């Protein structure tokens, strides 16, 4: 079965580079799946859970990403995101604290600018917590 080359770059490291069979990411208006020989494309990645299969029947590898981009070109896929973490790397305690903080900030009067920042942190914290929670299974 054909595969493609996947590269996931976060702002603090090269997260993953290697073969990939299929990739599902949170897109602009819902999840998008990419398989081998996809047409050239550039689109946005939203905060949420991205998953990929290194081989055809391998388990899905989950990655929590925040906003960024994906570029597909000649069977090479570049994912450039602000942060990428595996669920087991996530510090639940920290994420919970961040969520509390963001909720609190959202209840106060803020400028639009501050509102956007708090909202993004809230979304990130929730995505992180969701991935470590018990009730979520993407399969």
């Amino acid at each position: 079965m054909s595969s493609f080359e996947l590269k996931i770059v976060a702002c603090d490291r090269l997260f993953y580079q290697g073969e990939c069979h299929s990739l599902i990411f949170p897109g602009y208006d819902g999840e998008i799946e990419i398989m081998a020989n996809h047409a050239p494309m550039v689109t946005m990645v939203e905060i949420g859970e991205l998953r990929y299969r290194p081989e055809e029947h391998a388990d899905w590898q989950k990655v929590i990403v925040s906003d960024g981009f994906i570029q597909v070109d000649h069977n090479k896929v570049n994912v450039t995101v602000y942060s990428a973490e595996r669920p087991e790397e996530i510090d639940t305690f920290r994420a919970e604290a961040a969520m509390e903080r963001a909720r609190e900030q959202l209840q106060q009067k803020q400028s639009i600018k501050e509102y956007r920042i708090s909202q993004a942190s809230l979304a990130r914290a929730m995505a992180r917590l969701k991935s470590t929670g018990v009730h979520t299974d993407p399969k």
Partner: protein
Amino acid sequence: MASAKEIQNRIKSINDTMKITRAMYMMSSMKLRKARQRLDNTEPYFYSLQEQIREILYHFPDMEHLYFDNRDEDEQEKVKRRGIIVLTGDKGMAGAYNHNVIKEAKQLAETSENPRLFIVGEVGRNFFEGIQASVEKEFRFSTNHPTIHRARVITEEIVELYQQEELDEVYIVCTRMVNSMKQETEVTRLLPFATHEFIDQELLERAREEQAAKNRTSEELAEAASQEYDTGEYIIYPSPYEVLNSLAYNYVTGYIYGALVEAFACEENARMIAMQSATDNAEAMLHDLSIEYNRVRQAAITQEITEVIGGAKALKKKKKKQQAER
């Protein structure tokens, strides 16, 4: 000549100072190593963003966008409101590092009309508030331990003003590390982006790739051709404008983060070198002082001996005289 006691006091105080400079040297070298590591880690992210902007611009070179410099409005405007981001350190003791940045920033501010200064770092803020420049009071950030979060907040602030067209151009004054011994202060226009530069670079890159393709053997070429499935279509979803919008925003964040980390690395590097030379100077002074101290001590001993001998001689003479008188 100073007395032995005085010299000893000086030696002691220089020793104490040297302990401090040495400790600062060690701290700086550690921070520098961390900052370098961070800089290396963030590089792929930054290049990747840059490449994507280039790709889009290559496919849509005529697109007009707020973030790019090919808009008609931009050419018509005579007066540009400039925002200047200045990255300085939080404290001194870093050789000429802060001076160089401040000098460049001052020059740039003087050549523009009503510039607004966004200063990161305590040293620069103190200086520009001292000369009554129009410093943004709300804009308070430190360059110590740069994080991507700080870069985001800074970007949010700048981009908001830029989107409201309160700023037409944003410059950034920061220090780049050429190599571990040399650093340069650099003034770069952050916004709007120079469209043609991106396109030129993309063209260069493509030419290079073609050149590489020509050098390949026929077998490799055949293989590459079989993999070719280009439909000539290029999807940008949801729309080029939308994608560029957030791509540009992330690019600014990436750029500011890179600049913050690099400036921090440069500051620590400058401090390390300054502290190294301070330690060297202290050692040289100690060397001179210890020679002087030995000389003074020797002189004192010699003098004492002479005095003793003189005294003894005088006593002897006196005894002889007394014996003769008897």
